[in-house]
């Protein structure tokens, strides 16, 4: 790892100022950033540790009874939280299935979303639940947040403060993990929200997480495994990743199989 200047600001303003410098990067749990820096895929000259920002912590309910997660909330905290387990059990389950215990103890929801790994789990939840990202500058709807592989609508130096998740009528997440990395080979999040059914797929898309209108339509008529078509249209397959872990055909088959499994 190349050397850098390390800062741990205790106010959001100070963090924003530090991050406004050229070549500065935010550090959450370091579960992605540190490996990437070791590989020298990223060699920032300034590292701004967000760990002392109280504003980025905690889990609470908002005015519209949705669940709000501070960006620095760890996967283990989400998995074990009483409010999340009661109101959004699918999200608690998703968090409990991320990586391994040590990744869950350090990795954060904000870091996962900011990173937008095409095989990460949280992007599917934010998109399917029609959540939103609240930064130090603005609020960004899930539909506008993801911008392709490892890319988001976040501007340079913009800091995620909170994630808002409205409560769906019903929701579920199923993941088929790639056994070595534990990331999703395919993960499907389906939610019956008051704005209709939303289905988001992670792990499979060549442009990262995406919604599947044909599945949303089918599940919109009847939100049950039986109403999931056995096969997706060719248009969906064309958007899927092709790598050593699976062909587009295999991934497409997994999407429907996961949704149809009880």
């Amino acid at each position, binding site marked *: *790892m*190349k*050397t*850098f*200047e*390390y800062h*741990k600001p205790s106010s959001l303003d100070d963090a924003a100022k530090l991050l406004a410098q050229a070549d500065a990067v935010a*550090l959450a749990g*370091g*579960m992605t950033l*540190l*490996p990437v*820096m*070791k590989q020298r895929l990223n060699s920032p000259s300034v*590292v701004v*540790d967000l*760990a002392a920002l109280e504003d980025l912590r905690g889990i609470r309910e908002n005015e519209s009874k949705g669940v709000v997660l501070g960006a620095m909330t760890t996967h*283990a905290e989400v998995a074990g939280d009483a409010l999340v387990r009661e109101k959004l059990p699918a999200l608690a389950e998703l968090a409990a299935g991320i*990586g*391994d*215990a*040590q*990744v869950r*103890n*350090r990795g954060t929801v904000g870091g996962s979303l900011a990173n937008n790994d095409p095989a990460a789990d949280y992007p599917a939840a934010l998109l399917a639940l029609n959540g939103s990202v609240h930064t130090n500058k603005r609020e960004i709807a899930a539909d506008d947040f993801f911008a392709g592989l490892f890319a988001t609508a976040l501007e340079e130096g913009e800091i995620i403060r909170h994630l808002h998740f409205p409560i769906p009528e019903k929701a579920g997440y199923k993941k088929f993990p790639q056994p070595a990395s*534990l990331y999703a080979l395919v993960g499907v999040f389906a939610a019956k929200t008051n704005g209709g059914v939303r289905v988001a797929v992670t792990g499979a898309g060549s442009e990262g997480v995406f919604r599947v209108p044909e599945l949303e339509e089918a599940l919109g008529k009847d939100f049950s495994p039986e109403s999931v078509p056995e096969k997706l249209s060719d248009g969906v397959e064309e958007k899927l990743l092709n790598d050593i872990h699976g062909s587009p055909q295999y991934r497409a088959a997994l999407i429907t199989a996961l949704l149809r499994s009880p």
Partner: protein
Amino acid sequence: MRVQMTVNGKAVSGEVAPETLLAQFLRENLRLTGTHIGCDTSQCGACVVLCGGKSVKSCTMLAAQAEGADITTIEGMESPGGELHPLQEAFRQNHGLQCGFCTPGMVMSAADLLRQNPSPSEEEIRHWLEGNICRCTGYHNIVKAVQAVAAAK
């Protein structure tokens, strides 16, 4: 930069470069070489230590991030009188190790599990140890060792 933390109950400090990993600080500055570095890529769990009671991969944490933290390494597990920790003893009794390279991480990871869940099922133990790789034992005796401690509690 200067870092300070508590390691195995003792206040320690040291002068480190900002990119120093916690694993490096423990091994090189403090000479606590029980914490192993197997992969250095966050995969194998040989470097697991407890940070505020929670298991973390010390190869994927900066020493600076542990500022002020309470760290426990494998060296801090035995009793002040030098008796092995029940987990260490159970690994010994159950042949939970062969070469022993993965063992410090396994023990620290299992300690975190038992703190939260004193009587885990076999499946829970296996799920919890997903981040700890052992190339010798085939895991069965490691799981048995953790079960033995859980049963004795």
